[in-house]
């Protein structure tokens, strides 16, 4: 296959985006047709490119900055996954967004995002990667900003958070390039000692902020409400996870020589564990379909970071497997949320209920995806979580406990969500119908893939993930049933406990939506939740407060300086001016006197200085 073929995943979405841009407004379905055709072509190209190793490089701007792209097992896998989601979500969007006036903009941003993500994944040069990486930031901003009336604020929030993290990454890249002496990613191999440690931290900040980990997460729940729904299904749920975790894996495994027991590994695992628990705690008490899902989108990143952070083969495989699984079930969940929103007109759980009969296919897809995310055997999430548990346990009991606690709460929150939205009595409108077929197909395809990846987990593990790690696996094979029976038993017990907890919660509060109220109002948690809901812990808000404080101080200083210039100086000036003006009486005898006096002084000065 010619080396230029590697450019297809970048060029096809780009050309499609431009084509959509030039579609006339009156052309009806043309923009949808063009978008779907473009993403289908992109998917086709990704399939053809899969399993080929290609290198492509042309000089770009000197100083070692070449447009060099590299397609190998890992990037080909990500490209394929991106192309698959791109096609399905675009198809879904044609149904859910057609009537919206921002649809055309959305398609252009979406296609440009595919272009940028593919470019970032393929690039083998830090600067080129940075170019594509920042490109996703712009389209991210655009896609959020076209949403509802609060969207611009949320878009700004996302832009600032991700932008600051990208700035960190940029600095990290500069240090890395300095230490490694090259900008070519595949040739970088440095240690985390001294400056290298700083570079590692900075690059990790860039990667996990893209993936949406805590503490860089706080824009995602806001975007879930404000941005167009397909955006949530494709970016925070799927593409950003793929991109962020891909880069995190590259950092941890290729670019830096990390030891299993290094501080770097512990740091990553700690971030992962904290993200899992805190985000899912927040998810548990949400009362909005999309917002609840968005917290899970954050929480699940924790599992991936935890898995990769273990640096043991089983953990890494688990982390990567979880990455693709999460992309599947999370986008599926968001798509069901979108269907519910479109058909029932709301995503507020208090107003939903009894949708099981009216939207049976959506309900089935939701059930599969929810079972997957909760880690119910034999769905795909179960297998990847078991691998991560295994890896976490190998590194420390505390990480395992955090992971299993996260599982308990995940299951509990999805029991609540499913119960409140689909079961029970219908409180919502009576004329709710099943979603249109173009929205159902993506959901069904993804749900089936969830089942497939669970039942036949050798397919993703042997075909996609294990080749990525190559000799690092030391002959292990993680396909098939989990090896540690004790962990499986614990998992099943935890899921059962989650069910009991749900039943207890529903009994206690009397309604499905109140299933988590007893946790919400537990003695210590109550006050913490109160503060969290007031965004007390949102790093963005804390940052805003600090900036506000600074700006207030600066404003005082500014006012003081203003006073000096505008009041003091002016008054002094006018006083002096007035005094001198009074001297100018217009009386020429005094003018002559001045002249003579000054002359005398000058002559005396000159004569004295002889």
């Amino acid at each position, binding site marked *: 296959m010619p080396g230029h073929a590697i450019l297809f995943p970048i060029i096809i979405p780009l050309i499609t985006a431009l084509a959509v841009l030039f579609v006339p407004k009156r052309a009806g379905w043309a923009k949808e047709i063009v978008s779907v055709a473009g993403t289908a072509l992109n998917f086709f190209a990704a399939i053809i490119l899969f399993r080929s190793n290609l290198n492509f490089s042309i000089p770009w701007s000197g100083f070692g900055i070449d447009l060099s792209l590299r397609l190998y097992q890992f990037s080909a896998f990500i490209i394929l996954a991106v192309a698959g989601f791109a096609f399905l979500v675009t198809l879904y969007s044609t149904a859910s967004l057609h009537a919206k006036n921002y649809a055309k903009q959305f398609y252009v941003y979406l296609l440009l995002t595919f272009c940028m993500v593919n470019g970032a994944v393929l690039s083998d040069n830090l600067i080129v990667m940075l170019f594509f990486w920042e490109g996703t930031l712009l389209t991210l901003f655009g896609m959020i900003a076209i949403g509802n009336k609060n969207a611009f604020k949320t878009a700004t929030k996302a832009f600032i958070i991700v932008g600051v993290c990208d700035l960190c990454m940029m600095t990290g890249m500069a240090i890395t390039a300095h230490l490694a002496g090259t900008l070519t990613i595949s040739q970088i191999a440095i240690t985390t000692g001294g400056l290298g440690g700083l570079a590692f931290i900075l690059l990790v900040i860039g990667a996990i902020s893209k993936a949406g980990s805590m503490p860089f997460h706080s824009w995602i729940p806001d975007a879930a409400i404000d941005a167009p729904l397909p955006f949530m299904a494709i970016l925070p749920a799927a593409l950003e996870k793929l991109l962020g975790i891909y880069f995190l894996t590259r950092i941890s495994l290729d670019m830096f020589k990390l030891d299993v027991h290094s501080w770097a590994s512990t740091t990553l695992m700690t971030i992962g564990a904290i993200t899992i628990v805190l985000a899912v705690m927040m998810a548990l008490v949400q009362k909005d379909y999309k917002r609840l899902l968005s917290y899970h989108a954050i929480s699940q990143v924790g599992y991936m970071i935890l898995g990769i952070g273990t640096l043991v083969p089983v953990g890494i495989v688990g982390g990567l497997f979880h990455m693709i699984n999460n992309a599947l079930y999370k986008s599926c969940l968001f798509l069901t949320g979108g269907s519910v929103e479109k058909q029932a007109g709301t995503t507020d759980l208090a107003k939903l209920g009894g949708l099981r009969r009216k939207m049976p296919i959506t309900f089935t897809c939701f059930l599969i995806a929810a079972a997957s995310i909760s880690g119910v055997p034999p769905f795909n999430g179960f297998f990847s979580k078991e691998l991560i548990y295994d890896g976490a346990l190998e590194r420390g009991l505390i990480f395992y406990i955090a992971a299993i606690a996260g599982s308990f709460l995940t299951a509990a929150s999805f029991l609540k969500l499913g119960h409140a939205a689909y079961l029970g009595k219908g409180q919502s409108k009576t004329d709710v119908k099943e979603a249109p077929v173009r929205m159902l197909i993506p959901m069904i395809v993804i749900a089936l893939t969830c089942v497939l990846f669970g039942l036949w987990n050798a397919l993703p593990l042997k075909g996609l993930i294990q080749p990525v790690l190559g000799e690092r696996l030391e002959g292990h094979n993680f396909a098939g049933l989990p090896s540690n029976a004790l962990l499986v038993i614990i998992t099943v017990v935890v899921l059962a406990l989650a069910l009991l907890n749900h039943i207890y919660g529903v009994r206690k509060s009397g309604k499905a939506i109140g299933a988590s109220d007893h946790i919400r109002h537990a003695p210590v948690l109550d006050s913490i939740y109160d503060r969290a809901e007031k965004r007390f812990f949102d790093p963005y808000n804390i940052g805003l407060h600090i900036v506000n404080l600074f700006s207030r101080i600066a404003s005082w200083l500014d006012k003081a300086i203003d006073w000096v210039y505008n009041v003091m100086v002016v008054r002094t000036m006018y006083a002096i001016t007035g005094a001198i003006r009074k001297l100018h009486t217009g009386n020429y005898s005094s003018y002559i006197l001045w002249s*003579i006096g000054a002359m005398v002084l000058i002559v005396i000065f000159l*004569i004295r200085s*002889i």
Partner: protein
Amino acid sequence: MPSLMILIPLFGVIILNLVFASNDKMKRAAFWFALALFISQIAVAIFHHPIFWNNSLKPLDSFFKVSFFVDHLSFIMFICIGMVSIASLFVAKYTITEEGGRFKFINLLILASLGMSGIIMVKDIFSLYVFMEITAVSSFLLIAYPKSLESLEGAFKYLILSAVATVLMLSAIGILLLASGGTSFFAIASGIAEARNSSLIVFAIGLFICGLFIKGGLVPFHGWLPDAYTAAPASVSVLLAGVVTKAAGIYTMIRIVTSLFPYNQPVNNVLMLVGTISIFVGAIVAIGQDNFKRMLAYSSISQMGYIILGLGTGTGLGIAGAVFHLFNHSVFKSLLFVNSAAVEKETGTCDMNKLGGISQKMPVTGATSVIAFLSTCGIPPLSGFWSKIIIVIALWQTSHYAYACLAVLASIITLAYFLSMQRRVFFGKLRSGLEGLKEADRGVLAVSIILAAITIGVGVFFPFFFNIFILPVKEILVR
């Protein structure tokens, strides 16, 4: 050859009175005659590079019994004189509607330009005095010409203070004649060099410098200047501010200080001190003015201070900066006075409290005055920036850090009063009663635009102008 510069205006005045005085129609044509005369003067100056200039036309030069001499500095002054005279002529055509009055004005203008041309070419100190008096007398008449009480008072103040200056300079000339036995620059320079420490000669130097300070209107010798500038008719203000005080005061100061007197530290200290005082007093008083022209007059004093400050450094760069600022100032200050003439003529007042927002009705006037005041304040890339920065650099090079800082600081005050002027006169809401305002006539607008273009052009092509025309000026130090 240099005598041509005297002969052209001299015969010009004669022809003017013989040919054009006959009737009103001819008097109207006098404007075009004077214009042609000034243009030919500039042309003669330009087409004869200073190197070829000093070949004397024997018969003509002997006619005067005065030896003329031209160098790069005189060349720049020629350009200033021609340029400002033309600007003044156009303003006169615009503001002076009565034919006879304008004819008289043209006569006096040509005479003043004759005097100034003489000042910048003479080689002996007594002839210098004579030409200075020619300039001064024609200036008195020009100021007094409207015969209003105000203009008579202004002229009288100028006359009295000028008389003081004359007395001082004549006494100095007498003493120097006694000491050196001659009045030519060369004789005096060698005489002074011989008796360097004689207190009599230093006394004479002091008197002469003070006389020139009065002529140049430096603080505290400036009493006459604001009244004269304000009282004079618009076209005369342009001439006075643009070139008369510069030729009589500043140019002579440069010439005398560099080629006559020992260019030593005490004199430099006096120059820098007086320069700095002028800069600050002029600028600070300008802030409080309500009269447009009076503000410009004080601004002139302040800018003269810069020139003297640059001269006081005593280095080639400082003098080049001073001469450059002199040229720039005569461009942008005459531009501002031309605009003030347009405003005064159209609105009937120069009181800034009665003006406002007239840029809407007089866009060209408003825009060109913005360029002029930005150049005055030293905003890059306009010409004023370069001359000021050269003066500051020269001060810095000679370790006069305090003066350098003060010079920069004063720019801010300059900006302050010009911004307030611009806001009160040109920007903001149009003051009621000025709705019927019209733009000035085309001749004046053309002058404004050309002067603004020179300011921008010299600023943008600064290296070219500076290296070709201004920098050679420092040769006067070598001589």
